[in-house]
């Protein structure tokens, strides 16, 4: 579902780019954002390992899940832009 939506957003972006309404994205741009997301995921996993109560663990588990989804999207986007 996530990649499908992303593909639709990329198609919209390309349309805007053709009309001069968007800035051109290069692989370096995507790689830069991907790197930040990976660092955040690693930091969240460390927090999870140190978490003491179930609420914190649930919260961090969900945050890691979202971070992983964002990383998947960034990797897919990089494969399309490169």
């Amino acid at each position, binding site marked *: *579902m*996530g990649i499908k*939506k*992303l593909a639709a*957003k*990329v198609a919209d*972006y390309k349309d805007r780019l053709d009309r001069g309404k*968007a*800035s*051109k*994205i*290069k692989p370096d*741009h*995507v790689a*830069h*954002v991907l790197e*930040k*997301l990976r*660092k*955040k995921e690693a930091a*969240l996993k460390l927090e999870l390992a140190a978490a*003491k*109560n*179930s*609420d*914190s*663990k*649930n*919260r961090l*588990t*969900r*945050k890691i*899940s*979202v*971070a992983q*989804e*964002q990383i998947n*999207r*960034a990797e897919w*986007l990089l494969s399309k832009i490169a």
Partner: protein
Amino acid sequence: MSKYYLPVAIGALALAFWLKPEVQEIAAGVAIFLFGMLMLEDGFKLLGGGVLERLLAGATRSVPRALTFGAAATTLLQSSSLVSIITISFLSAGLISLIGGVGVIFGANIGTTTGAWLVAGLGLKVDIAAYAMPMIALSIILVFQKSNVLRGIGYALGGLGFLFLGIHHMKEGFDAFKDQIDLTRFALGGIAGLIVYTLIGMVATVIMQSSHATMVLVITALAAGQITYENALALAIGGNVGTTITAIIGSLGANYQGKRLALAHLIFNTATAAVALAFISQLAQLVDWISAHAGIAADDYALKLAVFHTTFNVIGVLLMLPLLNRLVGFLERRIAAPAPTVSMPRFLTDAVDAFPQSLEGALRQEVDHLYDNAAKLILHGLNLHRHEIYATDTIEDVVRGSRKAFDIDLADQYEQRVKTLYTAIIDYAARAGDTRYDPDTTRRIYSLRDAATHIVAAVKSVKHLRKNILRYTTRPGGMVTTLYDGLRVQLAQILAEIEKLGAADPSERSALWLEQESAQIEEDARSTVTRVETLIRTGKLSPTAATSFLTDSRYAYAAMRDLIAAERLYYAERDSALAEVEHLIALDDDELDAPSADHDTPVPRTPAPARNTTVTHAT
């Protein structure tokens, strides 16, 4: 006084033209020169974009860099006044340090002397009008283009052309003048001459608001033999002091930092002038020595004046540099920083208007100020201390331990500490509608405005919660206390995460982190009704208390969503391509709202220990 300036100036000009028609060409030359400087200024503003801001921020990291920037910028712009105004504007907006700003001013004083070289070395020796005409003609074509860059080049080219044309007419005017009048009749020697002509130079610069124009007048008059070399030296010194008046006028709308810089400018130029006057004979000898070694003819007084102008300004900088830290210390004592006013804007001042490129930076600082006030107010509204929330790893424990009601009037504090800042932000953001801004800058300014709107909405939502927070969390009330504590925990967690985001290294930070919080908010909001229904069915919560909680939880989640939205706008990538990448990767609202299907099995929630299990009725 200022209301008399215009009629007096027009009257004086009219009288001069009537008495001596020959003065007209000189006056017109000055006017064309000043017009050229205005065009150059406009051209630079169109070309500048965010480049100047980055250059200025980078240039003021060290004193030598600030000096170099000041000299280079003034040489390019041919206006120390413009560089002063830009520096005051950025300093007021909190974008550069005071010591960096003072360094720029020192450098500007050296850069401004290139004007004299331009006139004496080029203007008087070549047919400068021959270059001016095609420059002006070409510029008008560029000025009518749509591209800001081309228009900027057009204005700059036209400005330079008018500068040259102005010099030409001043030269012609004085040449014609000398056949009618000999101004050297008014030459004064000795100390009297020094003092009188220094004052004349000062007054002329104040009237024309340009030391460049004064120097050009002096050099062209000197070249035409209308003033003596000694009197010209005094006029140049006076011009240097007069130019500080522009900085002082520019600082009137600035905050205390801008005023400090204007005072620094006045001190430096006055001290330099005093040294130059005291050692004028020695300086004149030094100028003769330099000129002889540089191949300048002994009777080329125009070029020697340019050498003098540069020499005494360089000497001034060399003398003041070792005293720079003491000067900054004096400025900080003389113009003390006012006690930080949490309720008044700190960075959005009239000085920001003087140079629009500082608006975005000032707005960003002010939105940060607004958020700071709002976060404090929100947490106090929940009876929580900021420092405890930001310092702890177990927000739940801090919240459960915070039962004492804070004695605050949230509505009053909102008016004083939030609304005043929000009003200023909206006011200044509206100025982005001005076409001086490029589209990317306008987009970022509007984003900051929208961030401020979300912050204010969050505070207003928490205002609605206050009554029941006081009712249900300041003493144990069973399940309803647990539920309201849950809202307090969630709000506090959002604020703590935003604090962590702000404290993160900017090169590693991403607004996408906030999606991780958004997902949690939607999960909690979605499960609220189900949880409440279960508690009603099992008799742990009365329907009356449940309705209060359901209503308040909507306010709480609205506040959380507004805080997240504000920080996503605030921390969005400035680079438009990176912002585009973040936008593409970001999960949509319906994706954040969907129940998670791909997650690891969550650890079952440990219910908070119940303080008592009796059903609580809302009163």
